[in-house]
């Protein structure tokens, strides 16, 4: 039995944790929350220097091909500090989409730019409120041009290219749009978590090219969602763990009625419940990391399971962290809000927890399960 990070992976984790503790303390996150910048440029640059976008990228595209478990390790650490940088959009979504597409030309063109952080990529899918379905996609791809409107696009305001799900004469279609070449308008939007920027992108006959097999846009999206869900789940797991630690530390420092509030069972048992949810999420995440790493047929079930567990763990930890902090916890000046906002953002970015529960049961019915 060898179901844990290896010693090397643990070293990578410890190294990343020290690095981010130094480079991404709360004031960095607050700077993005309160300031005009869409992300922290210094942090983004340092992360690229560290080679993190290259972690799971094949060497052919400038990566170091360490592997997906290593990328999961990085994701967990970025989640812990609520990193305000366009990493998930480029690395979990755009890069994975390119890799899935099998399109050599585009892979060779765009993947090295993601590794070097010369470009931010994103995946533009959502068009309206409600659960994602192909029916809800109105964007049209015809004559190598895109027309339509995508909302809540992660880093849509700063991305230089986007993989866009569209309808076409040949069916659902992935397309790749270079957002620097005109034909599209981006408007940054306010979300529950201003430390990660999002935009509405309106395509008005924007030039784009097909990506991946025509008619396969929906299937590719499903596969991308499963893969990205694992990486997002690790970010959520990191956040949930950090929120629990924050609550735990405060409950030891804060006194009421002559005692540390952490000595009251109401608080102790809430923290124990956080621990339980976080450990269940961690175990599910490890399983999903294994499935991602091995391209297992169990990936859809494992990814959904990790996504559900991590979404719920982070939601619980982030809201009860505020509660344990009491009055100070819901002030703007306190740092609790970062987790409270980010947990909701990550919990919705790839679709709600209900959407993933449905995917999970579908996968169970299909049969490849633990």
């Amino acid at each position, binding site marked *: 039995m060898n179901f844990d990070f290896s010693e090397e992976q643990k070293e990578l984790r410890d190294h990343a944790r020290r690095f981010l503790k130094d480079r991404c303390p709360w004031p960095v996150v607050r700077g993005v929350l309160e300031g005009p910048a869409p992300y922290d440029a210094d942090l983004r640059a340092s992360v690229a220097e560290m080679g993190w976008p290259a972690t799971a990228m094949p060497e052919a595209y400038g990566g170091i091909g360490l592997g997906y478990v290593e990328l999961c390790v990085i994701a967990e650490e970025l989640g812990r500090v609520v990193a305000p940088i366009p990493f998930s959009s480029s690395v979990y979504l755009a890069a994975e989409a390119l890799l899935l597409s099998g399109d050599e030309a585009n892979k060779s063109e765009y993947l090295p730019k993601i590794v070097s952080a010369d470009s931010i990529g994103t995946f533009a899918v959502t068009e309206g409120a409600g659960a994602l379905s192909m029916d809800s996609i109105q964007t049209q791809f015809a004559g190598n041009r895109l027309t339509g409107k995508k909302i809540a696009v992660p880093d849509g305001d700063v991305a230089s290219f986007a993989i866009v799900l569209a309808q076409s004469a040949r069916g659902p279609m992935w397309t790749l749009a270079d957002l620097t070449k005109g034909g599209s308008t981006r408007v940054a939007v306010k979300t529950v978590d201003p430390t990660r920027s999002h935009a509405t992108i309106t395509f008005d006959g924007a030039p784009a090219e097909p990506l991946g097999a025509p008619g396969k846009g929906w299937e590719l999206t499903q596969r991308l969602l499963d893969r990205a869900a694992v990486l997002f789940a690790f970010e959520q797991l990191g956040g949930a763990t950090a929120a629990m630690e924050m609550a735990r530390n405060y409950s030891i420092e804060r006194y009421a009625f002559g005692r540390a509030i952490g000595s009251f069972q109401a608080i102790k048992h809430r923290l124990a419940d956080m621990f339980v949810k976080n450990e269940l999420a961690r175990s599910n995440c490890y399983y999903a990391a294994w499935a991602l790493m091995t391209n297992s047929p169990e990936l859809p079930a494992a990814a959904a399971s990790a996504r559900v567990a991590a979404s719920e763990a982070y*939601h619980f930890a982030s809201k009860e962290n505020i509660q344990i902090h009491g009055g100070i916890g819901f002030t703007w000046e306190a740092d609790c809000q970062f987790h409270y906002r980010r947990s909701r953002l990550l919990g919705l970015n790839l679709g709600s927890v209900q959407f993933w529960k449905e995917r999970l049961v579908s996968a169970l019915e299909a049969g490849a399960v633990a």
Partner: protein
Amino acid sequence: MDFNDNSEEAAFRAEVKSWLAKNAPKFAQKGSNVRREDESAEDIAEAKEWQALKADSGYAFIQWPKEYGGRGSPMQAVIYAQEEAKYPLPRNYFIIGAFAGPTLMAYATEEQKARYIRPMLRGEEVWCQLFSEPGAGSDLAGIRTRAEKEGDTWVVNGQKVWTTVAYMSDWAILVTRHDTTLPKHMGLTYFFLDMKSPGVEVTRIRQISGGSDFCEVFLSDVRIPDSQRLGEIGDGWSVCLTTLMNERFMGGDASRPDAKELLGLAKRLKIDGKPAIENPAVRERIAEWYVQSVGAKFTKFRTLTALSRGQTPGPENSILKLVNASKLQDIGAYGMDLLGTAGILADVDGDEETAQFLMAYLAAPGARIAGGTDEILRNIIAERVLSLPSDIRVDKALPFNKLASGAK
């Protein structure tokens, strides 16, 4: 068993309706019952005008004794509030007075009562309450603001927090610690205070939701005449309890969005191409919250019934905030879930009906804490309603300055 007014209540309601129909529209046109962050001087003046009009007609602080301008009837206060809520009237800045008043009635001199109570009732002078501190929230008796006696004057130093309307207050009630060598509850002394005194500094606190409903108040060498002490030296805890007893007003109605708003959202959204409202999982959730919502509503009716019968309301009222605050948080998050990825947006095409869920999500953490945390409320239900033993108290007998205290 019915929901009707008795004849006396019906008569009073008719009187109120007619008075409001005559007087409220003028203010309702100008004002709004929605809280605003940055009210203008005109907004405040208008609110004061409305309060004075109410006071002069016997509709301000109706629960107060008649001799102080009330009607001595909590039930009539409820009926008035129900009717008043039908108009978008100016924001009410005067609620602290409603329980500062009875404290003055109990502890102030006749001259003081004559001087302060009527302006308080009429809203001419706004009052605030300097109780909570950064280190003393749930544990109010743990406050550290020091009061030291110099002749006939007290010199006060400390920091208060979560003070409603402090930034526009004229007067304040204040609890301080005059002796740190006495056990916690015995070293407290209570005053009222001119908020324009030198050394009083007020700043507003911003909340996660972006609002600024509360203030911090810093007290630096603030001098208070001993004549403004309420109760004996060292008797501050008893005086606090008088204030808090009057603070236990009727639990409010649930904030929206509630189950009905969720039902509305579910009718508009789709899941797998079908209206979300047809999805049994969504239906189950709506049912669960609706049951809580109706349960809370009719629990309040039971309390009103006791008031109507001239009885002391039962303990059932103590559950309302506990139920409503978590429900608000859960419904907020679930509404966002139903919206899917679009749920992250503060504003879905300028649509207020969807934006309210995100707003609830950001506001609810405050609702679970302000006015008694979930945990304190459960303790209150357990100890006062179910008569369970109190927590083990390590802080009751020791001198205050010997108590363990944390870094924060």
